[in-house]
């Protein structure tokens, strides 16, 4: 699997093999071809710009656009890669590289682990599901829904039993999303609930977790409401998107319709702290109505 860093190295290598002078002219002519709107790119790092730092919404690859403002306005309204000048089987090199770089970032989000340091910073301890590694996690969704025996033991000894609300963090399909958002959202939710007089259980981190693992967690800890903050399957727009799945008295095997989800938590979607405040209200509503999912609507 190629990580973003590795990809960068490969690109550097390829360009250096083309000869320094060639690469310079190449880069230069490329720069001539595209007008980049001010503020859209950062400093050139050792002759090579980190293309993932370019804001796609502000990057114009069309040479001499008829209506620059109009094109920018269209691009502002979509994360899609429009206005890339050449479509079909032959994109511009930059478009192709950026696509691969974003794809690599998405893959990294899936295949890397949430750093221990960040888990520690959030004051969480770590447990895992029945999966033994990433490959198994990806190929055996069923195992990602159950805590392993050790985890059950640890939760039973370390966590407050029968809390009103149990919150935990899980990697899901994007570790990057957890690293970017969980440290910001967790304190908002916990503080918000505590100040409303709601007891919050002991938060922890669950590795190799899929959403329905929350049902098992709920059964083990006998929580009234269970909320998992979990990384969403990454895409090419962002690899940092996180969701919160929340359910009232979740049970293993319960229908999906009993879950609430707040998705799209990332810097380009709902800011983490603001989503956290929204989740506080949602959890309070669940406690009041003693329901979640579709039952909450009815």
């Amino acid at each position, binding site marked *: 699997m190629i990580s973003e860093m590795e990809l960068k190295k490969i690109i550097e290598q390829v360009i250096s093999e083309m000869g320094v002078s060639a690469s310079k002219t190449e880069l230069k002519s490329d720069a001539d071809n595209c007008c980049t709107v001010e503020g859209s790119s950062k400093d050139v790092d050792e002759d090579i710009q980190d293309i993932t730092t370019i804001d796609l919404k502000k990057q114009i690859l069309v040479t001499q656009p008829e209506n620059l*403002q*109009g094109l920018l*306005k269209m691009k502002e309204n979509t994360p899609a890669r429009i206005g890339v000048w050449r479509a079909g089987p032959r994109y511009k090199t930059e478009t192709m590289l950026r696509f691969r770089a974003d794809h690599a970032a998405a893959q990294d989000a899936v295949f890397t682990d949430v750093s221990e340091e960040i888990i520690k910073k959030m004051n969480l301890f770590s447990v895992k599901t029945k999966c033994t590694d990433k490959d198994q996690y990806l190929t055996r969704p069923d195992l990602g829904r159950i805590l392993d025996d050790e985890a059950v033991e640890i939760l039973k000894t370390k966590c407050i039993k029968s809390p009103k609300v149990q919150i935990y963090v899980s990697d899901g399909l994007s570790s990057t999303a957890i690293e970017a958002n969980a*440290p*910001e*959202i967790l*304190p*908002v939710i916990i*503080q*918000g609930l505590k*100040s409303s007089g709601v007891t919050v259980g002991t938060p922890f981190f669950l590795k190799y977790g899929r959403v329905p693992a929350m049902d098992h967690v709920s059964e083990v800890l006998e929580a009234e409401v269970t909320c998992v903050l979990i990384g969403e399957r990454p895409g090419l727009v962002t690899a940092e998107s996180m969701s919160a799945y929340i359910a009232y008295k979740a049970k293993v095997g319960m229908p999906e319709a009993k879950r609430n*989800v*707040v*998705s*799209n938590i990332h*810097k380009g*979607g*709902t*800011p*983490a*702290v*603001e*989503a*956290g*405040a*929204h989740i*506080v*209200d949602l959890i309070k509503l669940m406690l009041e109505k003693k329901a979640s999912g579709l039952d909450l609507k009815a």
Partner: protein
Amino acid sequence: MRESILSVGIDIGTSTTQLVFSSILIENIASQFSVPRIEVKEKRVIYRSPIYFTPLIDQETIDGQKIREIIEAEYKKAGFSPEEVSTGAVIITGETARKENASLVLESLSGLAGEFVVATAGPDLESIIAGKGAGTERFSRDEECTAVNLDIGGGTTNIAVFKNGQVIDTACLDIGGRLIRLAKDNSGIEYIAPKVKRLTERMSIDIRKGERLTVGKAEIICKEMTKALEEVLGLRPKSELLEMMLTGKDLKRNYSIDYVTFSGGVADFIYNSTDNNVFRFNDIGILLGKAISQSDITRRLKMKKLNETIRATVVGAGAHTVEISGSTITYTKNCFPLKNIPILKVHNEPEDIESLAENIRSIIELYNLQSGGQQMALALKGVKNPKYSQLVAIAESIVRGIGEYLKTQEYLIVVVENDIAKALGQTLYQMLHREKDVVSIDGISVGNGDYIDIGKPLGDGRVVPVVIKTLIFNF
């Protein structure tokens, strides 16, 4: 979620009084699976009153009783009761706003015009409302151009310049169709506005109350008024004439104008000028329209005729004054409507949280000296996608900055631009040990010196309607 709210607009102008009802449709446009996002989907004018002459007792006094009767009758005709109206604006515009009993008239209407209806005046805001009502704002956004709207009414000309849908400049001049009024069948001049008196004296033209006004003289006066408009638009070098006719600040003229649009009662006679029976309204409006239609304004600028002319201001007041807050907000008590809350804007770079408390402190001290500590709203830009630590720092700065002045406030009201109000409001409420009610809204951009009205929550209580009243317009 779809919800439609009823908004009323009442415009009491120098010459005419009008009313419109419009329906504003709000809808949650986010998916089921995301944090809600409620936006205005549609604004539609559903009822237009006839155009009444503004009833006056004498030149200096508006007949409040008669206005009340007109409005009451119009409510009946439209089939709405004041309780059904959730927002809107009553505007006393132009010269009429300077009448002595203007505020008294507003008071007499306040019960009639629904619970959350703002009463407002001020030339800058009038210009903006007219420009929005005329459709110039929208036109400039759709066409990506700079367009100026001249709302030429009975007493004043309100100018607003829009660039890509944003207001970039405003001005107001004492130029209007009813600054000279005639008795029936031009049997004699009934009224000459003081500014026009000065204008004619400067031109050595002699007009007097009671005497007949000749078309020739009227045309010369209208031409002179038009010159002032040419000057303000930069089509002619600025002279003392413009200085005299401006009611406040001048336009900046540091941009180029692509289009000009006209609204107000005189507009129809610019778009369709006529020589026929020019004194039929017993004023100089038709001739003023003709003078403008033959001036450099229409010759050198591209003229665009939009939907609303004489009704621009009332449509603007009815449909374009209200905004919707962001969809994630905090209010710990349903204390709405809150009316006429002065805005204290903290000018802080979003990154610079350290000096935030001090800045808040200094503006609050100044404010308290001036106002004796009445309810205010603190406005700040906030941080986009903040870290939790930043959020806490902002909240701490607010609490520290306000300090003991919090006692003078019934609620802590915070208005932020970036999407952080719900988290900020919750954090503030915790910091204040849930002892002071907090109203924290976002998605609203305000300036120092503005006033804000916050209406009753809509959309399952997720958003509040907001009207920002800009009295002093700073760019």
